[in-house]
Each structure stands twice: as structure tokens, then as C-alpha cells.
């Protein structure tokens, strides 16, 4: 009986991200009283101490939370720092304009997006998603941008001609089916 309560509480701690207080847990389990819950939390805490895993059930901020042991911090920190970089919506929009309209000059992208994009261009260049593809025979010889092989790789494209056309985008319909 208590075993099952213990595992229920454990599952909540497992799936939640914030520390859970006994009160919060009780509110999720009608019919259980605070004493029982505090009891199984203590049991759980002891069990994990005995098991000697890479994490423990810790009492923090009035509640309980699974936390990894400090010993493993460097590995975890390394993993978190390597989590893939992110693109902002603005960057993705700029990238899509370059993909669809290349070869294209900065002024033309800015005309389409209506904002200054120097910073975004620099970031996309740095990430290796776009490249300088030459200069246009116009006054001032503006730089022409295009996408890179890494761009194709990121979007799992064989080549640029496999990029779906606007018409195909439309033909996908407008379904908001559940």
C-alpha cells in the first residue's frame, strides 16, 4: 500500500521540474494525508541515498527534488553547453528569404523584411548557414548572399531544387486538424 504511494510520489518528482512540497503532492492525491506523504518522501530520500546512484532526492526550497550529485556536474554542464544553438524567428525568416531568393543582396532582403539585418547576416555567416557568393555588378558592388552546404544538411535537403516551392506550400492546405 505504502509502496504504491511511494512510487506515485516518486513518479511525480520524476516528471516534474520544480521542487514539490508535501502540500502540493497532497493536493494531487486526494484521500492522502500530509503525514503519510511526508513519511514516503523521507523513505524515498533514504532509499536513493542507499542506492548510490548519480542523483539524490534533495530537500530544497521547502520541497523535494531529484538532483544530480556535484561529482557529475562537469559532464552535465558540458552536455548543456553543447545543446544545439537556436535560431530566432527573425533569423529563420531571413534565412528563408535568402534560401528562396538567392542570389540576393542585403538591400533586397532588408526591403522584404523591412528592418536592418546586418546582425542577423553576421550570425548566419558565422553559423555557416549562408555564404558570400560574390558581388553584384551594381554601383557600390554590393555583396551577394547564398546558402551553404551546411544549410542543406540542416534541412535535410539534397539540393536547392528540392526546396518546396511557394505553390507547393500553398497546396498543403490550411488544415488545423486536431
Amino acid at each position: 500500500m505504502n509502496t504504491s504511494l511511494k512510487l506515485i510520489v516518486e513518479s511525480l518528482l520524476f516528471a516534474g521540474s520544480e521542487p514539490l512540497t508535501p502540500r502540493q503532492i497532497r493536493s494531487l492525491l486526494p484521500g492522502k494525508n500530509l503525514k503519510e506523504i511526508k513519511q514516503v518522501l523521507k523513505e524515498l530520500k533514504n532509499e536513493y541515498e542507499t542506492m548510490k546512484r548519480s542523483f539524490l532526492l534533495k530537500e530544497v526550497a521547502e520541497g523535494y527534488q531529484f538532483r544530480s550529485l556535484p561529482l557529475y556536474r562537469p559532464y552535465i554542464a558540458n552536455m548543456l553547453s553543447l545543446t544545439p544553438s537556436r535560431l530566432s524567428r527573425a533569423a529563420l525568416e531571413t534565412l528563408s528569404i535568402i534560401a528562396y531568393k538567392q542570389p540576393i543582396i542585403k538591400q533586397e532582403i532588408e526591403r522584404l523584411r523591412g528592418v536592418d539585418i546586418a546582425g542577423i547576416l553576421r550570425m548566419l555567416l558565422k553559423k555557416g548557414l549562408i555564404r558570400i557568393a560574390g558581388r553584384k555588378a551594381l554601383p557600390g558592388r554590393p555583396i551577394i548572399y547564398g546558402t551553404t552546404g551546411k544549410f542543406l544538411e540542416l534541412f535535410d535537403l539534397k539540393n536547392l531544387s528540392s526546396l518546396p516551392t511557394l505553390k507547393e506550400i500553398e497546396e498543403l492546405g490550411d488544415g488545423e486538424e486536431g
Partner: protein
Amino acid sequence: MTFTTKLEVFEGPLDLLLHLIKINEVDISDIPIATITDQYLEYLDLMRALDINVAGDFLLMASTLMHVKSKMLLPKQKDDLEEIEDPREEIVRSLMEYMQLKEAAQELASRDILYRDVFKRGIEIDGKRGEKEDINTAEVTLYELMSAFKNAIKKKYPDIVLRFKAEAWSVKKKMVEIMKRFKGKQNLYLSDLFSKMRSVSEMIAIFLALLELVRTGSIKVFQDKQGSDIRLEALNKKAYEWRKVKGQRLKAKGERKVSSRQYAASS
């Protein structure tokens, strides 16, 4: 109103066919096509009577069923009896395939689905997660790139309507087109109308146009011999020579029912 609760909603024509086969307790490899076709058409009528929009897919299957039914009535040649393919074969094959995939879908649905049955570890936040607006490059999809482009264009040119056309083919235009093809002749054959490679939606539009023309008495359909091509005869060519079909909403419901019946009766 109690009626509607009894009316099952079917995902498509194959779903409806399967249901009919099941309630009739017949063998899928030996479908009594006449019975099933009649019940199928009755069901479509019922849907219309209840104001349920009958999608073109249902009508296309209706025409296939009627075609198979007419073929079944054709006397078999004795000498090459072995070689004659059962006209029902194609329907049976698609039904079997459909059943198989339906079952696979059910099996998928019964798995331990993430966020429904099972959960992963809660994500610890500590500012490690980027803004919600941002996209993880490991997960960015081509679809998101496409959508981004569409957004960008839309922002700049709000007037460019990137419309999602539900109906690529206008039934009215097809009616005029069909009538135009009668120019200089009295008869046309059904196979002429479907001779070119066409998309399903266009074929449906042509088919609906045909039904509408029969209903309005502009053409009549004949079948000279069981199993032969359907012959179309223009009765009211003039009307289409000077009048661009205008306004005149295509009425469904009862009237449409009559037209499909006429077609059935003459085939």
C-alpha cells in the same frame, strides 16, 4: 433528431464501404456489389438529407461502384472465362490495404504515447532554455523554413493572397467546358471527358458538372450496351453558347439525389 445520433460519421468512402460490408456480414472477397452499391447510395442520400456535406471522394467512389456494378451485369465470355478479371478486384484490393493500415493506426494509438501515457524527465530550467520563440536548430524543420518564408512575404505584401484553395476546379466552369465540347456534334463519350491525365479533384469536378448538367436537363446519358462507354447527348446546347453560367448555386440535397439516380438508372 434522434436520427442523427444513429448516423455514424465516416472518414471517407472506404470507411463507409467497410462498414456496409460488415453490417451485411458478407465476405470481402465476394462482395454483393449491387446490394452494397444501393446501400452506399442510400447512405449518401441520407447524408445529404441531413445536410451533411458529401465530399467529392464519396461521389467518386459512388461512380466507381456503379461502374463495377454495370460490369458485373455483363455476360461473361465462356472461352476466356479464366482470364477475365473480377471487376470487383480493384475495390477489394484497396479495401484490404485500407483495413491493414487502419489496424496499424490502431496499433500505433495503443502504444505508450509520450505525454499521454508516459512522461520524460521534467526539464530543469536555470535559464538554460532559450526563449520560447527561438527554434532549436537540431529540431528546425523544412516546414518551419517554408512557413517563415511565407510569413516574410505576407508581412511585406499583405495583399498577395496566399490563399488555400479548397476547390481547385470550378464545377460551373467544367459544365461550360463540357458543353463546349459538344460543338459541332451531338454525342460525346464519357471516356472522352476523362481521356487526359487529370487530378482526382479535377475528375470529381467533371463528374459533378456532369451530374448537374443531367439534372438541369442540358444533357442526357445513355449506355448503348451493358458495359459499353457512357454516351452523352446534348439537349440544350444553345443555353451554354450564350450564357455564362452565372450565380445559380448548385443545389445539392434532394435534387442532386435525383441526378445520381438518373445516372445510375441509365447505366
